[in-house]
């Protein structure tokens, strides 16, 4: 192979890479003619939504695409290996490739929970890589592993060396994965959404760890994520992907301050912002138009917004207006009152099945919700926010405490009246994929609760209403007799919303309702929820792990931690003036992605990257 060696300091050059998948429904061009470079010591972020081909790109670099159905059909990946010189990875034999993998190029995956083999100890799995690629004996390998565990700041490295993956937390698992990836001092580290499955505070620590390790070792990183905020925290350069193609690349500063491509503009604008309150979130379609074939064109004539800044400016709600709304809300009667609610689950039983120990998922929680208000419920995984939402509806029975809805005590309800209550108190779940019965058409699914609760007199009227509802959530009447699997995630979530509306509820609990969606779709659904609120004067409890989403939606925010309420306050106060240390940490951990922040990070980074050619 004749590969010219690079004199520009490149470590990885990807030229016209094409990875296609052959499925039953035809060929899918997952990566379609992608070219980019990675310099020594540089961190390149690849950002894109689901289906953009960012993960397939990263797997192609490692040649980990499963064949069949996938195959690298064209292009070259030139790796300037410190030991082998410049080589084209696409042309290597499997045996040669194995010497590169885990040794000179290594990878950290998205799901730390499932990426470690459950039947081996963490130490064994890290040692395995070391023994494979380095000429050391077991004793030395163990020492190296423990040193690595120290480097990735795992507590009690010796204990974790002998632990099985299920015995340690998600963040710790990801540290083990990072230790494994760094064990042979690779020149390139590929991180495929390494923090997506983690809580925001854990994410912040992992990002910090990656930054420090990269600065110490001078490792080049390809960092893949869907979150522009995370990209701003770690990357030097950004590549934006959309449907298998690169739409824009440039330095972080350039992309964030002056995006050129309409998709990038849309992506930047549609993120809910922490620093200001917006009326409506701009969406990607405000900036560009996509035709049926997936070709995109800028909305040249009459674009809704011409730039990200304008989009934000036009939707900004000023402080006086917020104040006015806050004052008005408190004059309303409370529609829902939660008093000393407790939910406990048994965690261990003694020999005779008697419960020895409980975990208090919700521990003595009290708050009021006023009519027409949106209360945001935010907290990290396991803080009890989901359990709280479900116990209000009595989908989970509370252990003690009372919930009053319109001054009636919900815990006194039995059988039939609980079902009547659920007509007025609705919930929209997190996962739109599994919330719909796959064997029932969506029209039937929406009509069913109406029939049970005798909304409208006959099926004909109900059907008309369903079609009306489908149109309310921007779906079409002819979707009535389709099955759920024919819809995308965002569409399904809208179907779920339509089904919720069918019963004319007064009160809706949104349980992580947008967490499974891409940011651009998330913006659409959030806007829809806000529109409906205006229209029908709903009261919402909006549960999410994402403080910026909650802040966009909510008038007041409840911060939960370990089953207890940490803080209740107006959304603005929680952000600008957090009262407890926990809320403070939570707010600080969120990647801001604004220009000030990027400038600070880049200044700090400059110190370590003196030889970088810009």
């Amino acid at each position, binding site marked *: 192979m004749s590969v010219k060696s690079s004199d520009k300091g490149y470590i990885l050059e990807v030229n016209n890479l094409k990875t296609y998948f052959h499925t039953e429904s035809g060929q899918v061009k997952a990566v379609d003619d992608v070219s980019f470079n990675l310099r020594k010591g540089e961190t390149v972020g690849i950002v894109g939504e689901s289906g953009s081909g960012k993960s397939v790109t990263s797997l192609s670099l490692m040649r*980990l695409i499963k064949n069949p159905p996938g195959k690298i059909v064209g292009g070259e990946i030139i790796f300037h290996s410190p030991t082998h010189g410049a080589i084209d990875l696409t042309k290597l034999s499997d045996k040669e490739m194995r010497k590169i993998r*885990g040794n000179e190029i290594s990878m950290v*995956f998205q799901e730390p929970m499932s990426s470690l*083999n459950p039947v081996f100890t963490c130490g064994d799995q890290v040692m395995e890589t070391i023994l494979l690629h380095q000429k050391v004996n077991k004793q030395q390998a163990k020492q190296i592993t423990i040193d690595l565990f120290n480097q990735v700041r795992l507590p009690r490295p010796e204990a974790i060396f002998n632990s099985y993956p*299920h015995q340690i937390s998600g963040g710790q698992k990801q540290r083990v994965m990072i230790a494994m990836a760094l064990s042979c001092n690779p020149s390139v580290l590929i991180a495929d959404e390494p923090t997506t499955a983690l809580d925001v505070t854990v994410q912040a620590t992992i990002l910090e760890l990656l930054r420090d390790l990269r600065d110490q070792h001078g490792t080049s990183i390809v960092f893949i994520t869907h979150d522009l905020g995370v990209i701003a925290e770690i990357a030097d350069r950004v590549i934006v992907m959309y449907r298998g193609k690169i739409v824009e690349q440039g330095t972080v500063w350039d992309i964030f301050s002056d995006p050129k491509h309409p998709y990038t503009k849309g992506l930047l604008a549609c993120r809910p912002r922490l620093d200001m309150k917006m009326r409506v979130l701009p969406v990607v379609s405000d900036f560009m138009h996509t035709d049926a074939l997936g070709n995109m064109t800028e909305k040249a004539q009459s674009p809704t917004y011409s730039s990200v800044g304008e989009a934000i400016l036009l939707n900004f709600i000023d402080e006086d207006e917020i104040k006015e709304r806050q004052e008005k809300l408190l004059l309303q009667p409370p529609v829902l009152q939660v008093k000393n609610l407790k939910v406990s689950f048994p965690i261990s039983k003694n020999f005779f099945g008697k419960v020895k120990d409980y975990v208090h998922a919700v521990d003595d929680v009290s708050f009021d919700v006023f009519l027409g208000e949106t209360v945001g419920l935010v907290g990290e995984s396991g803080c009890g926010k989901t359990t709280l939402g479900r116990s209000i509806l009595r989908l989970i029975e509370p252990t003690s405490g009372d919930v009053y809805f319109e001054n009636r005590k919900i815990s006194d309800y039995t059988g039939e009246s609980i079902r009547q209550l659920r007509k007025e108190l609705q919930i929209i779940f997190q996962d739109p994929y599994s919330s719909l019965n796959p064997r029932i058409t969506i029209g039937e699914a929406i009509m069913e609760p109406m029939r049970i609760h005798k909304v409208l007199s006959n099926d004909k009227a109900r059907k008309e209403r369903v079609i009306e509802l489908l149109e309310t959530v921007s779906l079409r009447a002819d979707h009535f007799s389709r099955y759920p699997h024919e819809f995308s995630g965002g569409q399904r979530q809208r179907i779920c919303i339509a089904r919720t509306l069918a019963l004319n509820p007064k009160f809706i609990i949104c349980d992580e309702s947008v967490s499974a969606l891409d940011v651009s779709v998330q913006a659409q659904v959030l806007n829809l929820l806000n529109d409906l609120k205006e229209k029908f004067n709903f009261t919402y409890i909006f549960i999410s792990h994402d403080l910026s989403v909650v802040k966009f939606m909510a008038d007041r925010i409840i911060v939960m931690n370990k089953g207890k309420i940490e803080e209740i306050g107006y959304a603005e106060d929680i952000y600008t003036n957090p009262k407890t240390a926990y809320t403070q940490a939570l707010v600080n951990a969120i990647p801001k992605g604004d220009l000030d922040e990027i400038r600070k990070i880049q200044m700090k980074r400059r110190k370590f990257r003196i030889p970088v050619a810009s």
Partner: protein
Amino acid sequence: MLKFILKRMAYGSLVILGVLIVVFFLFQALPGDPVAMMAGQRTDVSTREAIAKDFGLDKSLPVQLVLYMKDLSPIAIYEDTPENQAKYDYSVLTNLGDNVLVAKTPYLRRSFQTNKRVDEIIIENLEGTLWLAFVAMLFATGVGILFGLIAALKQNTFWDHALVSLSVIGISAPSFVAAIIISIVFGYYLADYTGLNMTGQLWVTDPIYGRELHLENIILPAFTLGIRPLAIITQLTRSSMLDVLSQDYIRTAHAKGLNFYVIVVKHALKNALNPVITAVSGWLASLMAGAFFVEVIFNWKGLGWVTIKSVETKDFPVVMGATLFVALIFVVVNIIVDILYAATDPRIRLSD
């Protein structure tokens, strides 16, 4: 872990107790007069009464149940009489006035036909069945895992399709048809080439050479008995292997740069075999049931053979004893498997 084992054992003994009660009432509910069966030709009233008394048949059902359980209990209290001594063959632990606390082997009563102790009959025939089941399982597990691995690693090729089709036939072919065909084809038509017999025992008593071991006689019955588990293990291993191979941690192993065979043998197999182990153990008990037909057709002296013979002659203490014994084995095997399973999968240890 110890707590887990104890709990599992306590639970197992409860199941055995339940089975005992079920079996007892089942045989009570059967039509037919047991006294008449035992007495045979001797129909005079005194004989009948003596038999009825010996078996406690003159008492009410609950009392009979208690008596039966007392017979089975390894530790019990009896009146110290020579009759009881002869009947139960116990050894005295302590004297309690007129009564004695004794230890004994569970008394499963005596065969109507031969008047032999049922436990002796079971022990006599157990060896054959155990050998048969053991060899069949060994064959089925070894070959089945191999076939399953081949099918999974060569997914969607000729080998995969052929092995899957064969396993479908293996699962659906009724065991007695398979047994007959195999015994006739290999033991009769091809006997000259294979040198195997259609029927035979593990131990053949020759008038001149005495008791002789005939290992070749186990080949055909074990093969027949193994077909169905083999087919199921093949399919299970295949699907479980395919499932494991698509897991994230296999991708991690690839990303480490490990050799494909190291990944399969070290990382995938250990995870993939857990469901297979459970299934295999579940099959052990059914295997003993399947062994019944195989034993009859190959005339192989074992538990199944003796049970079917007793069913035909309505020798119900033997049937009852054998049923209880098989149930006991089933429960014990299940406990062992649960413990083994917990030992091989570190995730289970915490959850229970």
